[in-house]
């Protein structure tokens, strides 16, 4: 209060003086004279501490906040002398994989995209699509499963006839497991919230929500059998998750995550697959068994070493070094490497291709094909059936021995890049509106799940044997501000997320999405076209764990709602 008074006094003084000097001034802030935040960076301001300017800590934050800042390396990359590896890894992320042109070869035979950048446009979240095409901007994975209720439940086992991340492209002469031209995506409007919250705020401002309805007919599946032969099929969309700062999330201590579970378990029902409420500890299925490797300090980590799952919406992965990116660079492109000797495929696709006359005829006409075998139809069918089988070791089998398509060094470079992506510094924390937004965000309970900060310790990360003698960017003793509790919750949205549970998405850096990617879509399937829509989806159902906070948000004044949006866009 005292401080505020002093500021007022100063302002009045300046106003008087300004009038006396040039007789022409206004104290009213407009966009045109908004003060740049540069001189406040690194200083405590309002209700922000100095460290909040650096969401990735000193070792993980870039000072760049212009277009392209999502591409920046962390200071750790530079301090550890890893720039060359980072740049080589960046090329592996940005460039197209090809059939056989070095340095990025080995695409197919079935694949989802030929470049990582297609799914992570501008290094960000995917963009909302109204048709499914394997091209730049489409970060969607098709989630194809048998719904538990036989109709449209979000829950149910993945179909086994196509891969968990279904492929819609194939190299010649094969057909893709799913014909993408038969996939339809409709965006439907929400006419009323299941929770009863009106779609007009009390002050009269309206909001609208849309959700996807996806269909794939049986004729789109080039598999034998098709998924429809084993029961009804439902489809959901999952867009790419943010990749910036994922190395910093990898550095959050496991014990700190356990404490967060303990705190939340007192108030909400956590996913029993992750938390045993009775034992007040992790459930057995929360642990992930790692491959053979070692920790950053040199301690061996023999195969089977356990680590808590923390990555992907469904929390299927524990270490970043065996996480979504480490696998995607193999299975999205189907580019093999020494630690991934198998194809990402299914037996049902291999069988369908071995029975496809045009495939067999094309191979028969090309004696140089690895699937040619003895040149007879039966020989070719046998080679196709077995070489496309996910159980076949591509480097050691009876039909054709391929060479690893990505070298171990390329893979290491890629992981330096992946673990080395920074978080842009926060913006506009000096603005009163942003400070108000922080206060409201905490007051209405958003921060219960979007936990603001964590502190890393020794960041004794795990790494696989294939590059165990090399180092990755490391983030020791950093206070970071990702705004996630690293725990799954349920929002019960219309046509929601497969499996119902979804890890709280980090909010850091998301306010720069439009600048970096030209799009600002949010939530797991890009259904939210702006921050307000993303927040209101948290209140679609009264069962949602975010309902109470959303209800409070709904009842805020417009000024406070706008302040929350400004805050989220600034952190």
């Amino acid at each position, binding site marked *: 209060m005292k401080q505020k008074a002093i500021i007022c006094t100063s302002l009045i003084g300046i106003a008087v003086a300004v009038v006396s000097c040039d007789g022409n001034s206004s104290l009213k802030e407009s966009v045109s004279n908004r003060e740049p935040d540069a001189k406040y960076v690194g200083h405590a301001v309002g209700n922000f501490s100095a460290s909040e300017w650096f969401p990735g800590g000193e070792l993980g934050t870039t000072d760049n906040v*212009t*277009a392209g800042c999502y591409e920046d390396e962390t200071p750790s990359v530079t301090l550890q002398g890893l720039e060359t590896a980072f740049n080589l890894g960046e090329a592996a992320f940005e460039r197209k994989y*090809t*059939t*056989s042109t070095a340095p990025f070869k080995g695409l197919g035979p079935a694949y989802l995209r030929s470049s990582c950048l297609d799914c992570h446009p501008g290094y960000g979240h995917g963009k909302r699509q109204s048709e499914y095409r394997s091209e730049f901007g489409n970060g969607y994975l098709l989630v194809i499963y048998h719904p538990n209720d036989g109709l449209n439940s979000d829950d149910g086992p993945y179909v086994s006839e196509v891969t968990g991340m279904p492929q819609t492209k194939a190299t010649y002469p094969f057909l893709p497991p799913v014909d993408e031209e038969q996939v339809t995506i409709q965006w439907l409007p929400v006419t009323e919230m299941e929770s009863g919250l009106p779609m007009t705020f009390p002050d009269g401002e309206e909001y609208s929500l849309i959700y996807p309805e996806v269909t794939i007919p049986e004729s789109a599946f080039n598999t034998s059998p098709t998924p429809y032969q084993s029961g009804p099929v439902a489809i959901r969309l999952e867009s790419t998750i943010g990749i910036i700062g994922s190395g910093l999330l990898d550095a959050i201590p496991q014990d700190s995550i356990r404490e967060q579970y303990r705190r939340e378990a007192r108030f909400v029902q956590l996913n029993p697959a992750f938390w045993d409420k009775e034992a007040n500890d992790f459930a057995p299925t929360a642990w992930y068994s790692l491959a053979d490797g070692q920790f950053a300090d040199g301690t061996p980590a023999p195969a089977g070493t356990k680590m808590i799952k923390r990555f992907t919406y469904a929390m299927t992965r524990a270490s970043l070094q065996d996480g979504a990116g480490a696998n995607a660079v193999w299975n999205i492109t189907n580019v093999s490497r020494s630690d991934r000797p198998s194809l990402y495929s299914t037996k049902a696709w291999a069988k369908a291709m071995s029975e496809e006359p045009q495939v067999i005829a094309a191979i028969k006409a090309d004696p140089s094909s690895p699937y040619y075998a003895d040149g007879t139809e039966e020989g070719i069918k046998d080679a196709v059936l077995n070489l496309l089988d996910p159980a076949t070791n591509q480097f050691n089998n009876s039909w054709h021995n391929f060479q690893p398509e990505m070298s171990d060094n390329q893979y290491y470079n890629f992981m330096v890049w992946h673990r080395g992506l920074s978080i842009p510094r926060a913006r506009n924390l000096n603005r009163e509106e942003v400070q108000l937004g922080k206060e409201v965000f905490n007051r209405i309970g958003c921060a219960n799940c979007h936990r603001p900060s964590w502190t890393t310790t020794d960041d004794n990360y795990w790494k696989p044997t294939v590059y165990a003698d090399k180092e990755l960017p490391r983030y020791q003793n950093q206070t970071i501000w990702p705004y996630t509790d690293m725990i799954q919750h349920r929002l019960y949205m219309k046509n929601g997320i497969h499996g119902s549970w979804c890890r709280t998405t980090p909010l850091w850096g998301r306010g720069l999405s439009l600048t970096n990617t030209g799009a600002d879509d949010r939530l797991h399937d890009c259904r939210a076209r702006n921050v307000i829509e993303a927040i209101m989806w948290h209140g679609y159902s009264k069962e949602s764990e975010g309902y109470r906070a959303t209800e409070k948000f709904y009842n805020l004044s417009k000024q406070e709602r706008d302040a929350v949006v400004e805050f989220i866009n600034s952190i």
Partner: protein
Amino acid sequence: MKKKLIFGLAAAALVMTACDKSNEENVQNAFLSSAKEVVEQYVPNVIYSTYNDLARESSELYDLLADASEKGVNALQQSEIDAICAKFLQARQSWEESEAFLFGAATDFGIDPHIDTWPLDVEALATALSNAEQVSALEGEDGIAYASAKLGAELLGFHGIEFILFRDGANRTVSALQANEDNEAFAGKTVTGAQELIYATAVAGDLRDNCFRLCVAWNPDAPEAYKERCEELEVAVSMTGSDKTYGENMLGAAQLGSTYATWQETLASILVAGCSNICNEVAAVKMGNAHSGEDVNYIESPYSKKSFQDFIDNILSIQYTLYGKAGAKNPEKNSLITLLNDYKYEGINTLAHKLEVSIAALKVCQMKGAFVDIYRDASVQDAIDVISELDDELNNAAKWITRQ
């Protein structure tokens, strides 16, 4: 009395502070006014101008290829092939000279990875061109749409056309195009020069369409023909959630509705998101990845062997941005360089010097040979070093601007 004196002193202090503040504000207002003029000079004279050149040249390239394809490879003269190659290099130069402003439409619409795809999937190209059905689909007006939608991004863009027009640093010869393709990836497949030209024509059409889109997405006054083509293709040409072009958005900085909240931020974006980004890309990635010894295949433009020219054009793109006009050899009145000089930025001379020596260092490399032949030469490291220093200076200048 004493109290009054204290109050008086305080008031005087306040008034002085306020007058100082007022003077400071006047200086700042003048700076903002200058910054606005710099952007108003830059957007039409650098961005619109370069994209206009690129659109026109890529259109001419398509026309030349379409004519050649229609005429038939057996009737072609070497001079005609040379003219197509020269037009390709001209369009390529405009593209490289646009890389200091890849932010905006080129990135948001994925045009950069679409038309500058690398590496080319030569084996997939051999498969595609040995498929009569596919070649037939690439032929004629519908061939462009087929190429765009069905060919696959690995076969599109400058490098696909480059493969057809150049080999081993030289223009293709008439006799080579009149014979069957003999690249090793085509072994066992019969692909004629006529089929190669059909492919190059369709890809050039797709390239042209994307260059039109760049032009229209930035410049609200782009040629009507370009706008009509974009409408025909039903592609977005404005910013997400807005009907503004990228040019209008930048020119409308510091106003509601623009993504640039301040003029300082706008200039910093031009310097960092634009100039620094390509500077780093040239030094650390385009040159650095190959020079590291990791793999010679990291070299782009392997067929025309014009990598050094590409790098020079990239740095010239920075020069034109700093000087305020495409093709400028000296700073314009309302250029970034002039602004930095007028407002006494201490690093102005260093920045200007690093720009000059970066281009000189690349010319030294170019004199020694093609990048693929000298990529481990010490001159390459020298060039990487000075371009990295230029990058540092661009960031220093941006930092200074954000504090004004």
